[in-house]
């Protein structure tokens, strides 16, 4: 049995550990008891390693399942919940057809009384629909339209939608035309780049959707990048405006972007992956180490002076520090080999300049090469 004074000291020490002090710092307070306390405190300190944070996609999946269960299992009298849920859904869908209620439900928004009906009908449609992919895309668009309607009406509601990152500008993003606000509390996972399809979880505010979770969430086919979309180097993504996704009219091999022309060269070197570190292989990525292919002088060079909150002359990557940087490989098709191919590639066939008056990235297509991944089904 532990003596009372030691128990008291141990509790004080644990308080200090939880407050962030190290074992040695805590022991320094009780040098005469250090020998006794050390194994106890080492054990206590090791407990901090056990709990881990959940992956954001798990939270999204759990939320979806939770709300779906809540929406589909309301009546208490059900004997066979699944059958009854389905039956009610079917009856609901049939009865709603052609009725005024149908219209009301269809136009309802998150937070409206009939919104649950709308989602239940959609579930029935998804269950019995023939072209589920088409339907899912349509429903995703409906979710986005709902968000836009909420924003227009300045209503504050919890929302979830899927869309394409069109612009990353520090704390303000554009995802499929929807303004999204990112802050330090936003959980983010995946390579968040312009052109990436993401699921956003958040709440509508006067200025956009305040995101709580942003996660790259592949659809059932595993696609999370729209075809023909550019990837941006870490430096480019960490700074302000990035051009919108390329249109599909570009060559299917167009993928590479050039980094910011104003960027400090240092950050341009790729952030090596751990594999790279182990191998010690030099990077041959053209975006990373080779001289920039004319970093497309921005129309207004005075951007350097004005726009940068973060700026000290030579621009350091701006604080989208929460963004997980992309792989340094410029093509999504992987492969260091592919990078080398770039040297002998045909000249670019298209250059995309951003429409913004202060563009910061220019996209040039990569040569034809590894294109197997470009056959992704469209996610639109």
């Amino acid at each position, binding site marked *: 049995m532990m003596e009372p004074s030691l128990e008291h000291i141990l509790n004080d020490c644990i308080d200090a550990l939880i407050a962030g002090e190290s074992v040695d710092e805590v022991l320094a307070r009780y040098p005469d008891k250090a020998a006794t306390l050390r194994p106890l405190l080492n054990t206590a300190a090791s407990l901090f390693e056990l*709990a881990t944070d959940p992956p954001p996609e798990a939270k999204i999946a759990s939320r979806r399942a939770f709300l779906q269960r809540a929406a589909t299992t309301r009546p208490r009298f059900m004997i066979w919940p699944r059958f009854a849920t389905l039956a009610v859904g079917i009856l609901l869908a049939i009865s709603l057809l052609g009725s005024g209620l149908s219209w009301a439900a269809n136009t309802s928004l998150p937070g409206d009384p009939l919104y649950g009906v709308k989602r239940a009908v959609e579930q029935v449609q998804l269950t019995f629909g023939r072209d589920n992919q088409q339907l899912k895309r349509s429903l995703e668009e409906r979710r986005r339209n709902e968000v836009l309607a909420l924003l227009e009406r300045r209503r504050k509601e919890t929302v979830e939608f899927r869309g394409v990152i069109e612009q990353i500008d520090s704390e303000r993003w554009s995802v499929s035309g929807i303004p999204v606000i990112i802050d330090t509390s936003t959980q983010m996972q995946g390579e968040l780049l312009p052109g990436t399809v993401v699921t956003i979880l958040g709440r509508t505010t006067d200025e956009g959707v305040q995101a709580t979770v942003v996660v790259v969430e592949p659809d059932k086919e595993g696609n999370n990048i729209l075809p023909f979309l550019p990837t941006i180097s870490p430096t480019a993504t960490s700074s302000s405006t990035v051009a919108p996704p390329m249109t599909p009219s570009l060559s299917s091999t167009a993928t590479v972007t050039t980094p910011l022309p104003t960027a400090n060269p240092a950050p341009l070197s790729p952030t090596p992956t751990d594999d790279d570190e182990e191998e010690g292989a030099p990077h041959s990525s053209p975006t990373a180490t080779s001289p920039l292919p004319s970093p497309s002088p921005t129309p207004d060079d005075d951007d350097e002076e004005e726009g940068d909150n973060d700026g000290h002359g030579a621009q350091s990557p701006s604080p989208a520090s929460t963004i997980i940087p992309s792989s340094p490989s410029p093509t999504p098709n992987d492969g260091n080999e592919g990078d080398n191919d770039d040297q002998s590639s045909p000249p670019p066939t298209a250059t995309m300049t951003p429409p913004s008056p202060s563009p910061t990235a220019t996209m040039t297509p990569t040569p034809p090469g590894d294109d197997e991944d470009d056959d992704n089904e469209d996610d639109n």
Partner: protein
Amino acid sequence: MLDDAELLRRAYELDTDALAAIHDTYYQPLYRYISFRVGDRDTCEDLVSEVFTRLLSTLRQRKSLPGNLRGWLFGVAANVVSDYFRHSYRSQQTTLDEHIMSRDPLPSEIAEQMVTNEELRQAIRKLTPDQQHVLALRFGQNLSLQEVARILGKTEGAVKQLQARAIAALARQMTPGVVE
């Protein structure tokens, strides 16, 4: 931000916003609580889901929930974890800590950390339920003694005693011979 009482009132009506707010507020703390005691990531996700299922069930049956929703949820989480270890054969196995597995490949470090964490979790399972609960709340959630006392419905003194004895018991298991 709605307080727990208002959230609960709306949650009883199965209001989607209220349920979403409850989920978003408590998912991470519950996951951390459970991952403190269970190393397998998929299992953690399943068990958190089970906590929310039980919440829904309680709401649907109009059973009363205490004003302290957080305490209630952690209590359910503790029961869910206990049920899991009681009923699952997996409790007899040494599960790989997937949280560590997902990190960068540093084999020796991974191996050591996996063993340490799993040994720790096994040692924790030998503590009393209250001691386990206290450790998970203190070291998994970094809650203060007062908060833990409120959640457990005990005095701070009782929580301190549970904590100190739990650490001593754990240290005895982890470093036999060193700690008496």
